[in-house]
Protein backbone atom coordinates (compact mmCIF):
# COMPACT_ATOMS: atom_id res chain seq x y z
CA UNK A 1 0.00 0.00 0.00
CA UNK A 2 1.17 3.44 -0.92
CA UNK A 3 1.91 6.08 1.67
CA UNK A 4 2.24 9.22 -0.33
CA UNK A 5 2.60 10.86 2.99
CA UNK A 6 5.81 9.18 4.03
CA UNK A 7 7.56 12.07 2.34
CA UNK A 8 6.03 15.08 3.93
CA UNK A 9 6.34 18.78 4.21
CA UNK A 10 6.83 20.17 7.64
CA UNK A 11 6.75 23.78 8.74
CA UNK A 12 9.09 24.93 11.45
CA UNK A 13 7.22 26.12 14.52
CA UNK A 14 10.29 26.83 16.57
CA UNK A 15 14.00 26.11 16.44
CA UNK A 16 15.71 27.20 19.64
CA UNK A 17 19.20 26.82 21.03
CA UNK A 18 18.65 25.18 24.42
CA UNK A 19 22.31 24.69 25.31
CA UNK A 20 25.52 25.54 23.51
CA UNK A 21 25.22 23.99 20.01
CA UNK A 22 22.14 22.02 21.06
CA UNK A 23 18.84 22.84 19.39
CA UNK A 24 15.25 21.78 19.76
CA UNK A 25 13.17 22.00 16.61
CA UNK A 26 9.39 21.70 16.47
CA UNK A 27 7.87 20.92 13.11
CA UNK A 28 4.25 20.93 12.15
CA UNK A 29 3.26 18.16 9.77
CA UNK A 30 -0.19 18.85 8.46
CA UNK A 31 -1.72 15.59 7.35
CA UNK A 32 -3.47 13.48 9.94
CA UNK A 33 -3.20 10.38 7.79
CA UNK A 34 0.55 10.60 7.81
CA UNK A 35 2.77 7.73 8.71
CA UNK A 36 3.73 9.57 11.88
CA UNK A 37 0.70 8.08 13.55
CA UNK A 38 2.70 4.92 14.11
CA UNK A 39 6.03 6.45 15.12
CA UNK A 40 7.79 4.50 17.81
CA UNK A 41 10.79 5.34 20.02
CA UNK A 42 14.13 4.80 18.30
CA UNK A 43 12.79 5.62 14.88
CA UNK A 44 14.18 8.58 13.01
CA UNK A 45 13.40 11.00 10.21
CA UNK A 46 15.44 12.25 7.26
CA UNK A 47 15.33 16.03 7.26
CA UNK A 48 16.04 18.41 4.38
CA UNK A 49 15.43 22.06 3.72
CA UNK A 50 12.98 22.74 0.93
CA UNK A 51 14.28 24.81 -1.92
CA UNK A 52 17.90 24.74 -0.80
CA UNK A 53 20.52 22.79 -2.61
CA UNK A 54 22.60 22.29 0.50
CA UNK A 55 22.62 20.08 2.52
CA UNK A 56 22.18 17.83 -0.49
CA UNK A 57 21.34 14.61 1.34
CA UNK A 58 18.86 14.45 4.19
CA UNK A 59 20.20 14.34 7.73
CA UNK A 60 18.98 11.53 9.98
CA UNK A 61 17.61 12.73 13.32
CA UNK A 62 15.87 10.65 15.95
CA UNK A 63 12.36 11.50 16.89
CA UNK A 64 12.49 13.26 20.23
CA UNK A 65 8.80 13.74 20.64
CA UNK A 66 5.64 13.53 18.61
CA UNK A 67 2.03 14.39 19.32
CA UNK A 68 -1.15 15.07 17.39
CA UNK A 69 -1.97 18.72 16.88
CA UNK A 70 -4.88 20.32 15.13
CA UNK A 71 -5.41 17.74 12.40
CA UNK A 72 -1.73 16.95 12.07
CA UNK A 73 1.34 16.27 14.15
CA UNK A 74 4.04 18.15 15.94
CA UNK A 75 7.39 16.41 15.57
CA UNK A 76 10.20 17.48 17.85
CA UNK A 77 13.85 16.92 17.12
CA UNK A 78 16.72 17.47 19.51
CA UNK A 79 20.01 17.89 17.76
CA UNK A 80 23.55 19.01 18.15
CA UNK A 81 25.43 21.09 15.60
CA UNK A 82 28.44 19.04 14.57
CA UNK A 83 29.03 20.05 10.95
CA UNK A 84 27.78 22.12 8.07
CA UNK A 85 24.47 20.35 7.63
CA UNK A 86 23.34 20.66 11.22
CA UNK A 87 24.67 24.22 11.23
CA UNK A 88 22.47 25.19 8.29
CA UNK A 89 19.50 23.50 9.94
CA UNK A 90 20.17 25.33 13.19
CA UNK A 91 19.95 28.69 11.41
CA UNK A 92 16.46 28.07 10.07
CA UNK A 93 13.67 30.28 11.32
CA UNK A 94 10.01 29.55 12.07
CA UNK A 95 7.79 29.13 9.01
CA UNK A 96 10.59 27.65 6.91
CA UNK A 97 9.37 24.61 4.96
CA UNK A 98 11.18 21.31 5.39
CA UNK A 99 11.03 17.89 3.80
CA UNK A 100 10.65 15.29 6.47
CA UNK A 101 10.67 11.62 5.60
CA UNK A 102 9.68 9.15 8.22
CA UNK A 103 9.30 7.62 10.63
CA UNK A 104 12.09 5.36 9.46
CA UNK A 105 13.89 2.30 10.76
CA UNK A 106 13.23 -0.25 13.46
CA UNK A 107 12.92 1.39 16.84
CA UNK A 108 13.44 -0.11 20.26
CA UNK A 109 11.88 -3.46 20.88
CA UNK A 110 9.72 -2.74 23.86
CA UNK A 111 8.88 -5.89 25.69
CA UNK A 112 6.61 -5.78 28.70
CA UNK A 113 8.62 -8.60 30.31
CA UNK A 114 11.18 -6.50 32.06
CA UNK A 115 10.32 -4.84 35.32
CA UNK A 116 13.46 -2.73 35.28
CA UNK A 117 14.38 -0.50 32.36
CA UNK A 118 17.81 1.09 32.24
CA UNK A 119 18.47 3.95 29.84
CA UNK A 120 22.03 4.98 29.06
CA UNK A 121 22.53 8.15 27.09
CA UNK A 122 25.75 9.72 25.90
CA UNK A 123 25.42 13.34 24.85
CA UNK A 124 22.75 13.89 22.24
CA UNK A 125 21.96 10.15 22.48
CA UNK A 126 19.39 11.30 25.02
CA UNK A 127 16.97 12.14 22.16
CA UNK A 128 15.49 8.72 21.35
CA UNK A 129 15.71 7.58 24.98
CA UNK A 130 13.70 10.54 26.13
CA UNK A 131 11.04 9.63 23.57
CA UNK A 132 11.13 6.08 24.91
CA UNK A 133 10.49 7.41 28.40
CA UNK A 134 7.56 9.41 27.12
CA UNK A 135 6.25 6.26 25.53
CA UNK A 136 6.23 4.53 28.91
CA UNK A 137 4.33 7.43 30.40
CA UNK A 138 1.66 7.29 27.71
CA UNK A 139 0.93 3.58 27.90
CA UNK A 140 0.61 3.57 31.66
CA UNK A 141 -0.62 -0.01 31.54
CA UNK A 142 2.65 -1.50 30.45
CA UNK A 143 4.87 0.82 32.44
CA UNK A 144 7.74 -1.03 34.06
CA UNK A 145 8.22 -0.89 37.79
CA UNK A 146 11.50 0.88 37.60
CA UNK A 147 13.09 3.15 34.99
CA UNK A 148 16.60 4.32 35.67
CA UNK A 149 18.33 6.80 33.43
CA UNK A 150 22.08 7.36 33.11
CA UNK A 151 23.05 10.47 31.23
CA UNK A 152 26.60 11.48 30.48
CA UNK A 153 27.76 14.75 28.99
CA UNK A 154 30.99 16.69 28.76
CA UNK A 155 29.96 19.58 30.99
CA UNK A 156 26.89 20.12 33.10
CA UNK A 157 25.67 22.97 30.91
CA UNK A 158 25.25 20.52 28.04
CA UNK A 159 22.62 18.48 29.85
CA UNK A 160 19.54 18.65 27.65
CA UNK A 161 16.33 16.70 27.34
CA UNK A 162 16.29 15.60 30.98
CA UNK A 163 12.99 17.20 32.01
CA UNK A 164 10.84 14.28 30.95
CA UNK A 165 13.37 11.84 32.27
CA UNK A 166 13.21 13.43 35.66
CA UNK A 167 9.43 13.29 35.71
CA UNK A 168 9.13 9.72 34.57
CA UNK A 169 12.17 7.84 35.79
CA UNK A 170 12.66 6.37 39.21
CA UNK A 171 16.17 7.74 39.14
CA UNK A 172 18.35 9.89 36.94
CA UNK A 173 22.12 9.55 37.36
CA UNK A 174 24.35 12.14 35.76
CA UNK A 175 27.98 11.97 34.81
CA UNK A 176 30.16 14.70 33.36
CA UNK A 177 33.58 14.41 31.80
CA UNK A 178 34.80 17.42 33.72
CA UNK A 179 33.08 16.62 37.00
CA UNK A 180 30.97 19.76 36.87
CA UNK A 181 27.93 17.78 37.92
CA UNK A 182 27.29 14.27 39.20
CA UNK A 183 29.81 11.53 38.67
CA UNK A 184 33.18 12.67 37.37
CA UNK A 185 33.94 10.38 34.48
CA UNK A 186 32.30 8.32 31.77
CA UNK A 187 28.65 7.40 31.94
CA UNK A 188 29.58 3.80 31.22
CA UNK A 189 31.72 3.68 34.34
CA UNK A 190 28.93 5.18 36.40
CA UNK A 191 26.61 2.49 35.12
CA UNK A 192 29.17 -0.23 35.63
CA UNK A 193 29.39 0.60 39.30
CA UNK A 194 25.66 -0.09 39.64
CA UNK A 195 25.50 -3.06 37.32
CA UNK A 196 25.58 -5.73 39.99
CA UNK A 197 22.57 -4.22 41.73
CA UNK A 198 20.29 -5.01 38.81
CA UNK A 199 18.63 -8.37 38.29
CA UNK A 200 19.84 -9.45 34.88
CA UNK A 201 16.75 -11.40 34.02
CA UNK A 202 14.31 -8.60 34.93
CA UNK A 203 16.30 -5.77 33.43
CA UNK A 204 16.71 -4.40 29.95
CA UNK A 205 19.12 -1.74 28.81
CA UNK A 206 18.48 0.76 26.05
CA UNK A 207 21.48 2.84 25.07
CA UNK A 208 22.34 5.55 22.60
CA UNK A 209 25.45 7.68 22.27
CA UNK A 210 28.79 8.01 20.52
CA UNK A 211 30.16 4.76 19.20
CA UNK A 212 33.08 4.83 21.61
CA UNK A 213 30.58 4.81 24.45
CA UNK A 214 28.55 1.97 22.98
CA UNK A 215 31.69 0.01 22.39
CA UNK A 216 32.68 0.55 26.00
CA UNK A 217 29.27 -0.66 27.07
CA UNK A 218 29.58 -3.75 24.91
CA UNK A 219 32.82 -4.51 26.73
CA UNK A 220 31.19 -4.13 30.11
CA UNK A 221 28.28 -6.36 29.16
CA UNK A 222 30.31 -8.98 27.34
CA UNK A 223 29.91 -11.75 29.83
CA UNK A 224 26.62 -10.58 31.25
CA UNK A 225 23.26 -12.04 30.41
CA UNK A 226 21.35 -8.77 30.60
CA UNK A 227 19.57 -7.69 27.39
CA UNK A 228 20.80 -4.54 25.78
CA UNK A 229 19.60 -2.69 22.72
CA UNK A 230 21.64 0.11 21.24
CA UNK A 231 20.83 2.72 18.66
CA UNK A 232 23.82 3.24 16.38
CA UNK A 233 24.74 5.90 13.85
CA UNK A 234 26.22 5.76 10.39
CA UNK A 235 26.24 8.16 7.46
CA UNK A 236 23.12 7.76 5.40
CA UNK A 237 22.04 8.59 1.90
CA UNK A 238 18.60 7.07 1.33
CA UNK A 239 17.36 6.25 4.83
CA UNK A 240 15.15 3.47 3.49
CA UNK A 241 17.50 0.56 2.89
CA UNK A 242 18.11 1.04 -0.82
CA UNK A 243 21.66 2.35 -1.12
CA UNK A 244 23.51 0.08 1.33
CA UNK A 245 25.46 3.12 2.41
CA UNK A 246 24.85 2.88 6.15
CA UNK A 247 26.50 -0.48 6.70
CA UNK A 248 27.32 -1.60 10.23
CA UNK A 249 29.35 -4.71 10.86
CA UNK A 250 27.40 -7.46 12.57
CA UNK A 251 28.40 -11.04 13.21
CA UNK A 252 26.84 -12.24 9.97
CA UNK A 253 28.30 -9.53 7.71
CA UNK A 254 26.86 -6.06 7.25
CA UNK A 255 23.46 -4.73 8.11
CA UNK A 256 21.77 -1.47 7.19
CA UNK A 257 21.48 0.95 10.06
CA UNK A 258 18.54 2.71 8.44
CA UNK A 259 16.40 -0.31 7.79
CA UNK A 260 17.62 -3.23 9.89
CA UNK A 261 18.33 -0.73 12.69
CA UNK A 262 19.13 1.84 13.94
CA UNK A 263 18.43 -0.28 17.02
CA UNK A 264 20.42 -3.51 17.35
CA UNK A 265 21.15 -6.03 20.04
CA UNK A 266 24.46 -4.88 21.47
CA UNK A 267 25.91 -8.37 21.11
CA UNK A 268 25.05 -8.60 17.43
CA UNK A 269 27.34 -5.76 16.47
CA UNK A 270 31.04 -6.23 15.83
CA UNK A 271 32.71 -3.39 17.71
CA UNK A 272 36.13 -2.76 16.28
Amino acid at each position, binding site marked *: *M*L*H*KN*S*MMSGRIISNREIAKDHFLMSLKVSSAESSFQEASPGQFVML*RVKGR*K*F*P*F*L*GRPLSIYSIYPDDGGFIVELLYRVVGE*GTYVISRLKPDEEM*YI*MGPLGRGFDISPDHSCVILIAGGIGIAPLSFLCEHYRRCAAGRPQKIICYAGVQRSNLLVGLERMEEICSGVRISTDDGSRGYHGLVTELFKNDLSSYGHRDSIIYACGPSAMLKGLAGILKDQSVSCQVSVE*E*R*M*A*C*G*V*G*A*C*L*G*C*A*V*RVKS*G*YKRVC*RDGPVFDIHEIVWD
Partner: protein
Amino acid sequence: MKNPRNPKLQVDIGGLALKNPVMTASGTFGYGEEYSRYIDLNRLGAIIVKGVSLERREGNPPQRIMETPCGMLNSIGLENVGVRSFIDDKIPFLKKFNVPVIVNIFGETAPEYRKVAEILSDVEGVHGLEVNISCPNVEKGGVAFGADPDMAYEITRDVKSVTDLPVIVKLTPNITDIAEIAESVESGGADAISLINTLKGMSVDIEKRVPHLKNITGGLSGPAVKPVALRMVWEVVNRVSVPVIGVGGIMDAADAVEFLIVGARAVQVGTANFVNPRATMDILEGIEDYLIDHDISDINELIGMLKKG
Protein backbone atom coordinates in the same frame (compact mmCIF):
# COMPACT_ATOMS: atom_id res chain seq x y z
CA MET B 1 -3.95 12.51 -35.18
CA LYS B 2 -1.94 14.52 -32.73
CA ASN B 3 -3.19 14.46 -29.22
CA PRO B 4 -0.79 16.61 -27.30
CA ARG B 5 -2.94 16.31 -24.18
CA ASN B 6 -1.90 12.70 -23.88
CA PRO B 7 1.53 12.31 -25.38
CA LYS B 8 2.96 8.91 -26.21
CA LEU B 9 5.75 8.00 -23.86
CA GLN B 10 6.68 4.55 -25.10
CA VAL B 11 10.27 3.97 -26.06
CA ASP B 12 12.03 0.89 -27.33
CA ILE B 13 15.32 -0.15 -25.78
CA GLY B 14 16.94 -2.91 -27.75
CA GLY B 15 13.71 -4.79 -28.24
CA LEU B 16 12.34 -4.04 -24.80
CA ALA B 17 9.26 -1.85 -25.06
CA LEU B 18 9.09 0.52 -22.10
CA LYS B 19 5.90 2.35 -21.24
CA ASN B 20 7.97 5.44 -20.54
CA PRO B 21 11.66 6.35 -20.49
CA VAL B 22 12.08 6.71 -16.72
CA MET B 23 14.05 3.89 -15.12
CA THR B 24 15.76 3.57 -11.78
CA ALA B 25 19.55 3.42 -11.74
CA SER B 26 21.20 0.32 -10.36
CA GLY B 27 22.25 0.50 -6.74
CA THR B 28 20.02 3.43 -5.93
CA PHE B 29 16.71 1.67 -5.76
CA GLY B 30 17.55 -1.53 -3.91
CA TYR B 31 15.40 -4.35 -5.21
CA GLY B 32 12.32 -2.20 -5.65
CA GLU B 33 10.75 -3.11 -2.35
CA GLU B 34 12.44 -0.28 -0.47
CA TYR B 35 10.62 2.39 -2.48
CA SER B 36 7.35 0.58 -2.97
CA ARG B 37 5.70 2.49 -0.17
CA TYR B 38 6.60 5.81 -1.74
CA ILE B 39 5.70 5.24 -5.37
CA ASP B 40 3.64 2.91 -7.52
CA LEU B 41 6.30 0.71 -9.12
CA ASN B 42 3.94 -0.07 -11.98
CA ARG B 43 4.39 3.43 -13.31
CA LEU B 44 8.13 3.08 -13.87
CA GLY B 45 9.56 2.54 -17.34
CA ALA B 46 11.77 -0.15 -15.86
CA ILE B 47 13.42 -1.07 -12.60
CA ILE B 48 17.14 -1.73 -12.70
CA VAL B 49 18.08 -3.52 -9.53
CA LYS B 50 21.27 -3.39 -7.48
CA GLY B 51 24.23 -5.14 -9.10
CA VAL B 52 24.14 -8.92 -8.73
CA SER B 53 27.16 -11.22 -8.80
CA LEU B 54 27.54 -14.99 -8.89
CA GLU B 55 28.30 -15.30 -5.19
CA ARG B 56 27.15 -13.14 -2.33
CA ARG B 57 29.47 -10.16 -1.77
CA GLU B 58 29.91 -8.47 1.56
CA GLY B 59 30.87 -5.11 0.15
CA ASN B 60 33.36 -2.62 1.50
CA PRO B 61 33.78 -1.71 5.16
CA PRO B 62 32.09 1.52 6.31
CA GLN B 63 32.24 4.52 6.07
CA ARG B 64 30.79 3.97 2.64
CA ILE B 65 29.24 7.30 1.75
CA MET B 66 30.08 10.96 1.97
CA GLU B 67 28.27 14.05 0.84
CA THR B 68 30.21 16.30 -1.54
CA PRO B 69 29.24 19.58 -3.22
CA CYS B 70 26.01 18.80 -5.10
CA GLY B 71 26.79 15.13 -4.99
CA MET B 72 27.95 12.15 -3.01
CA LEU B 73 30.70 9.58 -2.99
CA ASN B 74 29.90 5.91 -2.42
CA SER B 75 32.05 2.87 -2.02
CA ILE B 76 29.46 0.18 -1.43
CA GLY B 77 31.68 -2.35 -3.18
CA LEU B 78 28.81 -4.17 -4.83
CA GLU B 79 27.41 -5.73 -1.67
CA ASN B 80 24.73 -8.13 -2.81
CA VAL B 81 23.08 -11.39 -1.92
CA GLY B 82 24.37 -13.32 -4.95
CA VAL B 83 22.38 -14.36 -7.98
CA ARG B 84 20.66 -17.43 -6.44
CA SER B 85 19.31 -15.62 -3.41
CA PHE B 86 18.38 -12.75 -5.66
CA ILE B 87 16.23 -15.06 -7.72
CA ASP B 88 14.70 -16.75 -4.69
CA ASP B 89 14.18 -13.75 -2.43
CA LYS B 90 13.87 -10.68 -4.59
CA ILE B 91 12.27 -11.69 -7.88
CA PRO B 92 8.99 -12.94 -6.35
CA PHE B 93 8.26 -9.48 -4.97
CA LEU B 94 9.13 -7.77 -8.25
CA LYS B 95 7.00 -10.17 -10.24
CA LYS B 96 3.92 -8.79 -8.55
CA PHE B 97 4.32 -5.62 -10.56
CA ASN B 98 3.74 -4.90 -14.18
CA VAL B 99 7.15 -3.38 -14.78
CA PRO B 100 10.17 -4.67 -16.69
CA VAL B 101 12.95 -5.76 -14.37
CA ILE B 102 16.48 -5.29 -15.63
CA VAL B 103 19.18 -7.00 -13.63
CA ASN B 104 22.50 -5.23 -13.32
CA ILE B 105 25.17 -7.92 -13.37
CA PHE B 106 28.74 -7.93 -12.28
CA GLY B 107 31.66 -10.36 -12.30
CA GLU B 108 35.28 -10.40 -11.27
CA THR B 109 36.14 -12.37 -14.38
CA ALA B 110 34.66 -12.71 -17.84
CA PRO B 111 33.37 -16.25 -17.19
CA GLU B 112 31.64 -15.00 -14.06
CA TYR B 113 29.72 -12.39 -16.09
CA ARG B 114 28.71 -15.10 -18.51
CA LYS B 115 27.61 -17.43 -15.75
CA VAL B 116 25.42 -14.85 -14.03
CA ALA B 117 23.87 -13.91 -17.37
CA GLU B 118 23.20 -17.53 -18.13
CA ILE B 119 21.50 -18.19 -14.82
CA LEU B 120 19.29 -15.12 -15.09
CA SER B 121 18.26 -15.83 -18.67
CA ASP B 122 15.95 -18.62 -17.66
CA VAL B 123 14.30 -16.77 -14.85
CA GLU B 124 10.75 -15.63 -15.28
CA GLY B 125 10.42 -12.04 -14.24
CA VAL B 126 13.78 -10.92 -15.60
CA HIS B 127 13.35 -8.76 -18.70
CA GLY B 128 16.82 -7.55 -19.46
CA LEU B 129 20.41 -7.42 -18.30
CA GLU B 130 22.59 -4.43 -17.66
CA VAL B 131 26.25 -5.40 -17.73
CA ASN B 132 28.19 -3.32 -15.24
CA ILE B 133 31.75 -3.00 -16.53
CA SER B 134 32.14 0.27 -14.77
CA CYS B 135 32.07 -0.03 -10.99
CA PRO B 136 34.96 1.97 -9.53
CA ASN B 137 34.66 0.42 -6.08
CA VAL B 138 35.86 -3.12 -6.51
CA GLU B 139 39.37 -4.43 -6.81
CA LYS B 140 38.78 -6.84 -9.61
CA GLY B 141 36.51 -6.54 -12.61
CA GLY B 142 34.39 -3.44 -12.86
CA VAL B 143 36.16 -0.46 -14.24
CA ALA B 144 39.17 -2.50 -15.33
CA PHE B 145 37.00 -4.10 -18.01
CA GLY B 146 35.18 -0.91 -18.87
CA ALA B 147 38.36 1.02 -19.62
CA ASP B 148 39.72 -1.47 -22.12
CA PRO B 149 37.94 -1.60 -25.50
CA ASP B 150 38.97 -5.20 -26.12
CA MET B 151 37.81 -6.48 -22.75
CA ALA B 152 34.61 -4.51 -23.07
CA TYR B 153 34.02 -6.08 -26.46
CA GLU B 154 34.69 -9.58 -25.19
CA ILE B 155 32.50 -9.41 -22.14
CA THR B 156 29.66 -8.04 -24.21
CA ARG B 157 30.04 -10.79 -26.78
CA ASP B 158 30.30 -13.47 -24.08
CA VAL B 159 27.19 -12.29 -22.31
CA LYS B 160 25.28 -12.00 -25.57
CA SER B 161 26.26 -15.55 -26.50
CA VAL B 162 24.47 -17.04 -23.51
CA THR B 163 21.30 -14.99 -23.34
CA ASP B 164 18.33 -13.94 -25.41
CA LEU B 165 17.51 -11.13 -23.05
CA PRO B 166 18.19 -7.57 -24.23
CA VAL B 167 21.68 -6.66 -23.07
CA ILE B 168 22.52 -3.12 -21.98
CA VAL B 169 26.18 -2.38 -21.32
CA LYS B 170 26.93 0.29 -18.74
CA LEU B 171 30.00 2.41 -19.32
CA THR B 172 32.38 4.18 -17.00
CA PRO B 173 33.15 7.90 -17.36
CA ASN B 174 36.67 7.41 -16.00
CA ILE B 175 38.04 7.16 -19.45
CA THR B 176 39.75 9.15 -22.18
CA ASP B 177 37.47 8.25 -25.06
CA ILE B 178 33.99 7.08 -24.15
CA ALA B 179 32.87 6.79 -27.76
CA GLU B 180 35.62 4.28 -28.47
CA ILE B 181 34.37 1.93 -25.75
CA ALA B 182 30.82 2.49 -26.90
CA GLU B 183 31.75 1.37 -30.39
CA SER B 184 33.46 -1.72 -28.98
CA VAL B 185 30.45 -2.86 -27.01
CA GLU B 186 28.19 -2.09 -29.94
CA SER B 187 30.27 -4.33 -32.15
CA GLY B 188 30.25 -6.90 -29.34
CA GLY B 189 26.50 -7.02 -29.81
CA ALA B 190 25.15 -4.75 -27.07
CA ASP B 191 21.47 -3.98 -27.60
CA ALA B 192 21.79 -0.70 -25.76
CA ILE B 193 24.35 1.33 -23.87
CA SER B 194 23.86 3.12 -20.59
CA LEU B 195 26.12 5.82 -19.21
CA ILE B 196 27.51 7.05 -16.96
CA ASN B 197 28.45 5.08 -13.91
CA THR B 198 30.13 7.11 -11.18
CA LEU B 199 33.25 9.26 -11.53
CA LYS B 200 36.04 8.14 -9.27
CA GLY B 201 36.56 10.63 -6.47
CA MET B 202 37.89 11.13 -2.98
CA SER B 203 37.36 13.26 0.07
CA VAL B 204 39.43 13.77 3.22
CA ASP B 205 38.62 14.32 6.87
CA ILE B 206 41.03 17.14 7.71
CA GLU B 207 40.74 16.61 11.45
CA LYS B 208 41.58 12.93 11.48
CA ARG B 209 43.65 13.19 8.26
CA VAL B 210 42.10 10.06 6.83
CA PRO B 211 39.95 9.60 3.73
CA HIS B 212 36.28 9.86 4.63
CA LEU B 213 35.68 6.57 2.88
CA LYS B 214 37.34 3.50 4.34
CA ASN B 215 37.97 2.35 0.77
CA ILE B 216 39.90 5.65 0.20
CA THR B 217 38.20 6.41 -3.12
CA GLY B 218 34.58 6.13 -4.16
CA GLY B 219 32.18 6.88 -6.97
CA LEU B 220 30.85 10.40 -7.42
CA SER B 221 27.20 10.77 -8.38
CA GLY B 222 24.49 13.40 -8.24
CA PRO B 223 23.94 16.77 -9.93
CA ALA B 224 27.66 17.60 -9.78
CA VAL B 225 28.35 15.06 -12.54
CA LYS B 226 25.45 15.91 -14.82
CA PRO B 227 27.43 18.07 -17.27
CA VAL B 228 29.95 15.26 -17.71
CA ALA B 229 27.24 12.64 -18.21
CA LEU B 230 25.41 14.76 -20.74
CA ARG B 231 28.58 15.42 -22.71
CA MET B 232 29.41 11.71 -22.81
CA VAL B 233 25.92 10.78 -23.96
CA TRP B 234 26.32 13.37 -26.71
CA GLU B 235 29.65 11.89 -27.78
CA VAL B 236 28.26 8.38 -27.78
CA VAL B 237 25.00 9.01 -29.64
CA ASN B 238 27.08 10.58 -32.38
CA ARG B 239 29.05 7.40 -32.80
CA VAL B 240 26.76 4.42 -32.24
CA SER B 241 23.36 3.48 -33.54
CA VAL B 242 22.06 1.38 -30.64
CA PRO B 243 19.87 3.17 -28.12
CA VAL B 244 21.66 5.09 -25.39
CA ILE B 245 20.32 5.47 -21.86
CA GLY B 246 21.38 8.62 -20.03
CA VAL B 247 22.34 8.46 -16.35
CA GLY B 248 24.08 10.90 -14.07
CA GLY B 249 22.78 13.69 -11.89
CA ILE B 250 19.21 13.65 -13.14
CA MET B 251 17.25 15.33 -10.37
CA ASP B 252 14.19 16.67 -12.13
CA ALA B 253 12.29 16.57 -15.40
CA ALA B 254 14.32 19.40 -16.89
CA ASP B 255 17.48 17.37 -16.40
CA ALA B 256 15.86 14.33 -18.00
CA VAL B 257 14.69 16.39 -20.95
CA GLU B 258 18.26 17.61 -21.52
CA PHE B 259 19.37 14.00 -21.90
CA LEU B 260 16.49 13.18 -24.23
CA ILE B 261 17.18 16.20 -26.42
CA VAL B 262 20.83 15.24 -26.65
CA GLY B 263 19.76 11.82 -27.86
CA ALA B 264 19.23 9.46 -24.93
CA ARG B 265 16.32 7.11 -25.62
CA ALA B 266 15.65 6.71 -21.90
CA VAL B 267 17.03 7.92 -18.60
CA GLN B 268 17.93 6.40 -15.27
CA VAL B 269 17.34 8.18 -12.00
CA GLY B 270 19.90 7.39 -9.32
CA THR B 271 20.98 9.59 -6.44
CA ALA B 272 17.80 11.65 -6.81
CA ASN B 273 15.85 8.78 -5.24
CA PHE B 274 17.74 9.30 -2.00
CA VAL B 275 16.90 12.96 -1.86
CA ASN B 276 13.30 12.54 -2.92
CA PRO B 277 11.80 9.03 -2.93
CA ARG B 278 9.19 10.22 -5.40
CA ALA B 279 11.80 11.61 -7.80
CA THR B 280 11.02 9.13 -10.59
CA MET B 281 7.33 10.03 -10.52
CA ASP B 282 8.01 13.77 -10.40
CA ILE B 283 10.32 13.35 -13.37
CA LEU B 284 7.83 11.25 -15.31
CA GLU B 285 5.04 13.76 -14.73
CA GLY B 286 7.37 16.63 -15.56
CA ILE B 287 8.38 15.06 -18.87
CA GLU B 288 4.73 14.62 -19.73
CA ASP B 289 4.05 18.27 -18.92
CA TYR B 290 6.97 19.35 -21.04
CA LEU B 291 5.64 17.39 -24.02
CA ILE B 292 2.18 18.85 -23.55
CA ASP B 293 3.49 22.39 -23.15
CA HIS B 294 5.58 22.03 -26.27
CA ASP B 295 2.92 20.32 -28.32
CA ILE B 296 4.87 17.13 -28.80
CA SER B 297 2.61 14.14 -29.22
CA ASP B 298 5.26 11.41 -29.11
CA ILE B 299 8.38 11.47 -26.98
CA ASN B 300 10.37 9.97 -29.83
CA GLU B 301 9.95 13.30 -31.63
CA LEU B 302 11.93 14.95 -28.84
CA ILE B 303 14.76 12.44 -28.64
CA GLY B 304 17.92 13.64 -30.34
CA MET B 305 16.43 16.98 -31.39
CA LEU B 306 19.43 19.03 -30.31
CA LYS B 307 20.13 21.88 -32.69
CA LYS B 308 23.69 22.99 -32.77
CA GLY B 309 22.97 26.61 -31.85
